[in-house]
């Protein structure tokens, strides 16, 4: 069974997420598309931006161009249709719109290059993916419109393929370390199903910091946790067990909390993309007793490595592949520039 067949037996929608710009996201996408051609699988190809940010709406124009084989189902906005070099049969005009016009679902009739774009809104995106599955796509690959990790947020896809590579650092060890950090964050433990989870989920809709002490739940009148560190520290008293943060978790917030209190509590976040703390600091904080749970974590279906950096240096293929595979355990690692 081919690599993609295995993926499609577990997941329907997979996002390709780059660790950084030029980590090889598009290369990864092209690699998976070639795999699909070899395995004779019908792919659905689309892309997304992140909801709620103007810049993404604007840079929605940053459209990946990919070579697609006939049979592939693809989302193309009206204004990009004529720019495609492939022959596209229009199957459906959707109700989702982008900065480049309404999204159409097309089937590639004559292979060639296509400029892909999809809706920015997560809910629309999910519905559109369902439509693509209706039209016969066996596995949907989602290319983020912007190279940013936060698009990995659960909801857009069932799992991600994390693209990493030489671009992160000239030091191979550092590349592995940074990647491992993200893998670790994405796989943070979920708050287990049960009464505690139900209480947190019920409170989370209010988008406020929530303190849980036994049977008692308290909301803080603070919307953002960015500047809330001191205030939060004062509010944590003896017996406070869980702290839900609705927004971003940054170094600053944690630093304001008394070390003894930090050991006592467990943080809960909506998902791992809310963490904005680097690998080194994260390790130090863990040593100081930081415990973090998430409501939803992110499944990593595979990691792709690109040994080439655009600035001109590269790693030995085998070295990077081996080091990465050793570090991440049982997540499959693929060299997108592999020659074999």
């Amino acid at each position, binding site marked *: 069974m081919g690599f993609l067949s295995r993926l499609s037996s577990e997941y329907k929608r997979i996002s390709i997420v780059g660790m950084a710009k030029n980590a090889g996201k598009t290369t990864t996408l092209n690699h998976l598309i070639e795999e699909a051609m070899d395995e004779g699988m019908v792919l659905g190809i689309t892309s997304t931006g992140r909801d709620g940010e103007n810049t993404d709406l604007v840079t929605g124009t940053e459209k990946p161009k990919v070579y697609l084989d006939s049979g592939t189902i693809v989302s193309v906005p*009206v204004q990009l*249709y004529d720019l495609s070099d492939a*022959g596209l*049969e*229009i199957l459906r*005009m959707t109700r989702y719109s982008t900065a480049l016009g309404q999204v*159409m679902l097309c089937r590639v009739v004559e292979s060639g290059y296509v400029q892909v774009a999809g809706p920015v809104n997560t809910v629309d995106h999910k519905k559109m993916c369902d439509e693509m599955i209706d039209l016969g796509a066996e596995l949907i690959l989602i290319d983020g419109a912007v190279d940013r990790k936060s698009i990995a947020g659960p909801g857009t896809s069932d799992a991600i393929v994390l693209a990493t590579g030489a671009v992160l650092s000239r030091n191979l060890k550092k590349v592995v370390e940074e990647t491992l950090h993200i893998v670790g964050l994405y796989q943070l433990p979920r708050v287990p199903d049960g009464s505690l989870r139900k209480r947190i989920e019920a409170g989370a809709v209010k988008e406020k910091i929530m303190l849980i002490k036994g049977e008692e739940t308290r909301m803080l009148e603070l919307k953002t946790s960015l500047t809330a560190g001191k205030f939060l520290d004062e509010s944590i008293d003896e017996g406070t067990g869980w702290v839900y943060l609705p927004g971003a978790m940054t170094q600053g917030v944690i630093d304001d909390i008394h070390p003894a209190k930090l050991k006592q509590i467990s943080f809960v976040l909506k998902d791992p993309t809310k963490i904005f703390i680097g690998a080194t600091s994260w390790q130090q904080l863990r040593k100081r007793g930081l415990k973090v749970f998430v409501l939803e974590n992110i499944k990593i279906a595979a990691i792709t490595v690109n040994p080439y950096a655009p600035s*001109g240096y*590269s790693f030995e293929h085998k070295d990077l592949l081996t080091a990465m595979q050793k570090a991440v355990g049982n997540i499959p690692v693929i060299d997108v520039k592999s020659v074999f």
Partner: protein
Amino acid sequence: MQLSNSKTKNEIGFDHVVNNINVVTPFGKRRIKEIQPFMPGDEGYLEHTLSQLEVTLDMVEREPRKVDILREVFMEMKDNTFTIAHSANNILTVVELFEIKTLLLQMTAIRDNLISSTIPLPEEFQLHDLLELLNVLDPGKDRLNTFYIYDVFSEKLTLRRREKRKIELDLRKVQKERRRKVEADYGISMTPKFELPVSKADRALIEKVKAIPELMLSEEDYITATFTLKRDETVDLFQMALDEINEAIDEEELAVQKKLSGRIASYRSLLEENCNRIGELDFNLAKALYAKENHCVKPDITTEYLIEINEGRQLVVEEILKRKGKAFCPVTIDLKEGVTCITGANMGGKTVTLKLVGLCAMLAQHGFFVPCSQAKIGLSSYIHILIGDSQNLQRGLSSFGSEMEELRVMLEKSKDRTLLLFDELASGTNPAEGLALTKSLVDYLDKKPYISLITTHFDHITGMGVVRNLQVRGLADANFQNLAREIRYANKRERIEVIGKYMDYRLFEVDKDQEIPKDALNIAGMLGISSEIIEKAKKYMEDRNHEK
């Protein structure tokens, strides 16, 4: 000449109804914006419009499934009138052709649905048969809502595309053959993409590969050098052939697009006519659905000038009451040329009745059904409601000043067959002058061919004899013991609602000399104004009656 101003349409609730007519197609939305009243003399046309609505309502009631299907198709429709017009002098893009095909499939679905209906809808809603054009865009008759410049559109295109695939295949074959030869000749192995990456550490290999004339260096960094197959004459020839054929394909595709656009353009007027008819049908279905939902009936249109409403309801107020789980108390009223006054208790619904009359008249005159059990309506040339307006106060005009300003305008605009509705005229000035002004206005209106309806608290403005006097029954028949008990246990906010519950909003005709019942003090007392004030006020009333 306009039937009324926008304030009147808004105050009586006409805008509310129009905003709740749920048209779904872009054509229906355009239709509803063009809504125009029928003026006196247009009774025949109005009758025709109302009977169309009657048939549509019949379909809504007897064939709900068909209506659902129609509305489903409607919801998917997009405004393609620009594309249709565009086809006249332009070549449509593939996306535009797709949209026209979609439109044609939708029209076919609507047409088939209407033809198979057991209730034949009027000719004005039936769509022209455009099967011929659909077959042009869907020659395979698959009737699938997909589009591409398919091979079936042009034999030439089919051949060209086949040729292109053959060249691509041949090119790949040649390349593969060359790779095989190079691999065999030099004992190397290249990727399926015809690349050969070599580690720079392997100096010997680098030198060896560099010496191979069929290969060239394509990419290099300090660790790896990547070589590819050099192009040769055969490859270049293939490439040239490919470029040529691609150009020919593009040309032929454009020719197909041009041909199809031309055919669409030749059907332009029928397509546009169908869009308008869909708009008309959508609008009528939406009106019928609204009429069903809100229990509206077809009004009788008469050439006489009169307004008769049986068990009428004011839809805006009814909706508010419904949300609170209460029902609207229907009001029956007959109006003829001349002046009619409504008097009676505070909170007795006089103003609502005024709006109700305006709403029924306005709806009927725009071809809508009317919220009542029966209505007979003569058309007006002008309708105006004069009612307190907080906007004018914000503009800095006193309530009396702005009222007089509006009164002047409305009297200027009035002509034959005018419906004038006055809410508590001159209540913002001193009672003596207010009464005098009202009386003289009544005298003035009574001589005109208008239907005037006035709510007032003034006694005896109806003294001239010709004027009819209607009174709200109010709390006259209410069980005051029960009312008092309920009030006692109600909190402040509930008190108003308790009074509403005991209020009888119906109207009855009274003798013109009869005094207006004085319920104001009772109601003020029930609403919690201290008894010290109420008792003193009652005493003042007694003194006043003695003086008389």
